[in-house]
């Protein structure tokens, strides 16, 4: 397990929990790092665009990778401008692309996301696009230079879990990039399930931010993600569908 690393754009991480940016507070960041073991913390550039910005950036400990996101962007062009601004603010080369033309559900716009990925990957960014799980789009994103693919599990902030499970499984099976499940994971058990499926990491925010005991929930996520990862690496055993089954019900007649 010690050698089990998550590699994104040539950077190595040991933790497979990434803190999202939705509900932002210092307490949450602290719990994510200390209790959930997060090595990557998302920060909305628009939220960091404040006179308090230094205190926010200062709060992120050295050794933790800052993942600025482009939330607020409605087009590829706006996302590109926000990503460049993030670089100017000293947030590094990682960028999570979020492009929404929908203020109600905050569902990502896949077409615009592909365009932004292409532009930013060429500019040397480590591009992590948030997307609606569609295989063709995931292939286009990979071809455009994405470092990971980040499909949503269910609507952001909904805590509804793996509503798009079958489609995420297809991405895991078909795309040669880390698949990071982003948005909608509400419980540690759902995070565990996604990891068992072969997801490379989990991004969550609301599930922690709205928990009764934040540090304890952060620990629970860490353990669930580790358990799911180990289960995936060990190879899941068979699952009996209904009752017991004969050993070779169809081909027994071939036995000598």
């Amino acid at each position: 397990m010690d050698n089990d690393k998550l590699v994104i754009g040539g950077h190595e991480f040991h933790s497979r929990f990434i803190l999202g940016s939705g509900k932002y507070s210092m307490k949450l960041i602290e719990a994510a790092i200390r209790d959930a073991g997060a090595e990557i913390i998302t920060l909305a550039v628009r939220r960091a665009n404040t006179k308090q910005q230094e205190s926010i950036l200062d709060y992120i400990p050295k050794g933790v990778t800052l993942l600025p996101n482009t939330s607020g962007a409605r087009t590829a062009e706006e996302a590109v401008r926000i990503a460049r601004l993030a670089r100017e603010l000293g947030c590094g080369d990682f960028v999570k692309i979020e492009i929404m033309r929908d203020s109600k559900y905050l569902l990502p716009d896949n077409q615009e996301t592909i365009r932004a990925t292409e532009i930013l990957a060429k500019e040397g960014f480590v591009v992590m696009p948030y997307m609606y799980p569609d295989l063709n789009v995931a292939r286009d994103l990979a071809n455009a230079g994405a470092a990971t693919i980040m499909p949503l599990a269910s609507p952001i902030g909904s805590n509804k879990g793996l509503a798009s499970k079958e489609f995420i499984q297809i991405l895991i099976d078909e795309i040669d990039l880390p698949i990071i499940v982003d948005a909608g994971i509400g419980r540690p058990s759902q995070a565990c399930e996604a990891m068992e499926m072969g997801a490379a990491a989990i991004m969550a925010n609301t599930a922690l931010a709205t928990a009764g005991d934040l540090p304890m929930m952060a620990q629970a996520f860490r353990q669930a993600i580790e358990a799911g990862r180990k289960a995936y690496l060990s190879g899941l055993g068979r699952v009996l569908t209904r009752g017991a089954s004969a050993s070779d019900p169809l081909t027994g007649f071939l036995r000598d």
Partner: protein
Amino acid sequence: MENQFFVDSEYLSPAALEKKHRLETDPSSRKNHMEYMPGMEQIESDVCKNVMTQVESYDYSRYTARDVKAALEHETCTVEDFKALLSPAAEPFLEQMAQRARLETSKHFGNTVYLFTPLYIANYCENYCVYCGFNCYNHINRMKLNMEQIEHEMKVIADSGMEEILILTGESRSKSDVTYIGEACKLARKYFRMVGLEIYPVNTDEYHYLHECGADYVTVFQETYDTDKYETLHLLGHKRVWPYRFDAQERALRAGMRGVAFSALLGLSDFRKDALASAMHVYYLQRKYPQAEMSLSCPRLRPIINNDKINPLDVGEKQLCQVLCAYRIFLPYVGITVSSRESAKFRNGIVKIAATKVSAGVSTGIGDHESKYTGKETDGEQGDEQFEISDSRSFADMYRDIAEEGLQPVLNDYLYV
């Protein structure tokens, strides 16, 4: 009991008084409030028809406790559920509504509360809106800040820590034209991260110009969606034209503004119908412009200079809380702003339930931020206020109070792109 709005000023000439009285007493002396005036752009849109169909058929007396309970059990609040939550039958369920509203607020906004302050740059007005302190027949100190004065005000406000500003004017195209307002926006971009506008409604090309000057959020209060009542309250001026005002947000969105804000002024007419109309206005525009950010306010009538008796009638704090909870449950993704018209106690409570944005360090007067913020007496002239505020907390006090409630004050979450 109705509000008594008509107040005669001894400073008005006999001719002005005569015209004022005629407007007040003789409906035939008033222009048709549903007819556009020259220069007002008319857009093709079905939003108004959709909203008014809902409002006209709304009979809130027919909803029962059973409807309210069902509404609270549904995962997604339908239009019918929302109508039940706004009805008198929902009043005994206020605590349950607040619990549900708090859950929805936390899902969409976490524990954040945004802070902003309004900046009135002029109080000249060509309208006679009988409940408003700026109305053209009210004798008050009139003033329009020049660019130097505006910049001074902005510096004082920015120094307090504020990062979002809402620029307001009285409704006078001749005294405060679009270029003047645009120049103020350009200045505001230097001092603030987010610039909003609450001015007279303008045409799409003018909104586009103001957007290019740096404004990105447009607030227009419809005051009341009851057109017959509206006619009796807005007796003179551009504001009298109800449909042009109704379409203002849609014109602003077409012009590229990121967000728009809506409101009825509760206490003018039937508040349940006005609350329904405001929310349906948001609902239908959101379906048409899904990328737009939307927010709702819920102001209640306040006393004004020369008429301290104006009050919100049957809209008490409980009713206001009911409306805000119903808004939050029906439209979980919209911002809800609660202004300094409400008391500190009410605002402290409502930010924990439904509100996501509050004003602080508020003055509704003109050119008086330095004296109000620092206590320093200035020789400069000052313009009178639009209405009396209730919560006079400074930016620093508000920031501290919000943090002490366990919430997170946020000064900016916005980029102009």
